[in-house]
């Protein structure tokens, strides 16, 4: 069990920046255990390029990812396959507690579809809520320089608000397919954006440390890193922000009690392209991701393939 909470108060006197630097180095150098490959933590809490640095916002984000699994035939059993779609509509918000501290809340509604030879299931409901805080370490976005950059880092907690033990025909449905993980998980993330006039780069990384749920099931820790190039184009009252880049994710294998679960975890590298449109306080965005390289930890009797993913979002800044 974790004893970390008890120790936390003794560390509050340490210089904030030093601590954050340590955390970030860990994020980069640390054991990159892996992605969310399938399911509930779909895309983690990928921020993307966020609008209007100094403002609060509230928005809706709709995302979908598809996976295909194939089980080879045996002597007596024909091949089986499944097409699975993981979707969520998420209410999310950013609120500035102080000028340097931003709070984020994510409340997802999840609806997943499994269309398989052996199993056909549809499940929907509230997913796992996420609360985060980011601290602004660098921000010269209000300066007159042509070079502008911001660095934010922070962390949060994911709460077990989603159902995690849905059954089908007397058997628990694949854990990735559940509405939530049933566990309290901890996240850390850092976002760096640098812009020269109208062209910029955005780097984002995140790590999620999972704990065991009440069923004794432990999802593997997850790591993600993304980089994007973007352009800022203004046409009267409308601004366009096209962007393209790569997204990497990695997830460690799950454990049920002590038992390592086959066909869980893996890595994927996805190429991404998208467009955000700014009209007054409203931002509408779309982002498409396609796997370039992937390896999911399937055994030699099965194949798991990630298909394209997309996200659309609508944000109101105030």
């Amino acid at each position, binding site marked *: 069990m974790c004893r*970390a909470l008890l120790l936390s108060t003794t560390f509050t006197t340490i210089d904030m920046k030093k601590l954050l630097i340590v955390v970030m180095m860990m994020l980069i150098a640390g054991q990159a255990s892996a992605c969310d490959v399938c399911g509930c933590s779909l895309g983690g809490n990928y921020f993307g390029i966020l609008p209007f640095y100094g403002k609060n916002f509230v928005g809706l984000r709709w995302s979908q990812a598809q996976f295909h699994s194939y089980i080879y035939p045996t002597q*007596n059993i024909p091949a089986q396959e499944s097409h699975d779609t993981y979707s969520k509509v998420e209410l999310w918000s950013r609120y500035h507690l102080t000028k340097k501290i931003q709070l984020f809340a994510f409340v997802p509604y999840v609806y997943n579809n499994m269309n398989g030879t052996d199993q056909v299931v549809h499940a929907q409901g509230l997913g796992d809520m996420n609360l985060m805080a980011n601290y602004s370490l660098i921000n010269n976005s209000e300066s007159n320089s042509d070079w502008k950059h911001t660095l934010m880092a922070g*962390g949060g907690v994911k709460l077990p608000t989603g159902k995690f033990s849905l059954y089908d025909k007397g058997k628990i449905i694949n854990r990735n397919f559940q509405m939530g993980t049933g566990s309290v998980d*901890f996240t*850390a993330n850092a976002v760096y954006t640098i812009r020269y006039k109208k062209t910029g780069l955005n780097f984002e990384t995140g790590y999620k440390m999972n704990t065991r749920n009440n069923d004794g099931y432990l999802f593997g820790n997850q790591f993600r890193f993304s980089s994007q190039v973007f352009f800022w184009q203004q046409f009267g009252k409308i601004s366009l922000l096209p962007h393209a880049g790569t997204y990497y994710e990695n997830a460690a294998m799950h454990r049920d009690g002590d038992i*390592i679960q086959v066909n869980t975890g893996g890595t994927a590298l996805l190429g991404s392209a998208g467009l955000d449109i700014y009209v007054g306080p409203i931002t509408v965005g779309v982002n498409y991701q396609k796997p370039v390289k992937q390896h999911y930890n399937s055994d030699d009797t099965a194949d798991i393939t990630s298909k394209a993913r997309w996200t659309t979002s609508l944000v109101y800044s105030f």
Partner: protein
Amino acid sequence: MKKLFIIPFILILFSCSKDKVDPNVGPVTIEFDNTFTDDLKLTIDYNVTNIQLKRDDGTVFTDGLNSHHVSEANEGSQEISLKDLPAGNYVQVSFKIEELHVTGSFEYISASSTVLLTFADGIPVRAEHEPEAHLLFNMNTLKGGGDVQSAFVVDHVHDN
């Protein structure tokens, strides 16, 4: 406020201590897959008792007096999980099928039958992994006049 903000970092900095795992024992799953052709509509129920697994050195692991009810209606019941077997390679399984009731397109009732099956490559039992032996119980064999033993076959073993 800063205090609150730091807590998640600290939690990540101090990783949790790992649960202790006994390296000398492991679990195994035996799956009872009742098969029949599409032209049949069947209700199938039976109890699996007296499961014994034999390791390649002759050691026998016994599930004791446990009785596992298997029902065609409940997929969860078709996977029998045994815990804490001494690690090693298991090459043979025997069990009793009791109170077998197959009803529907045809009827087959049997009070008690013993089944013995061998695994060509064995089932590797080890800590932190759960191998699975996938057995097929072919109802068409029963319909054709075969006995319970002849209706069972080992389809495959997942080492996992």
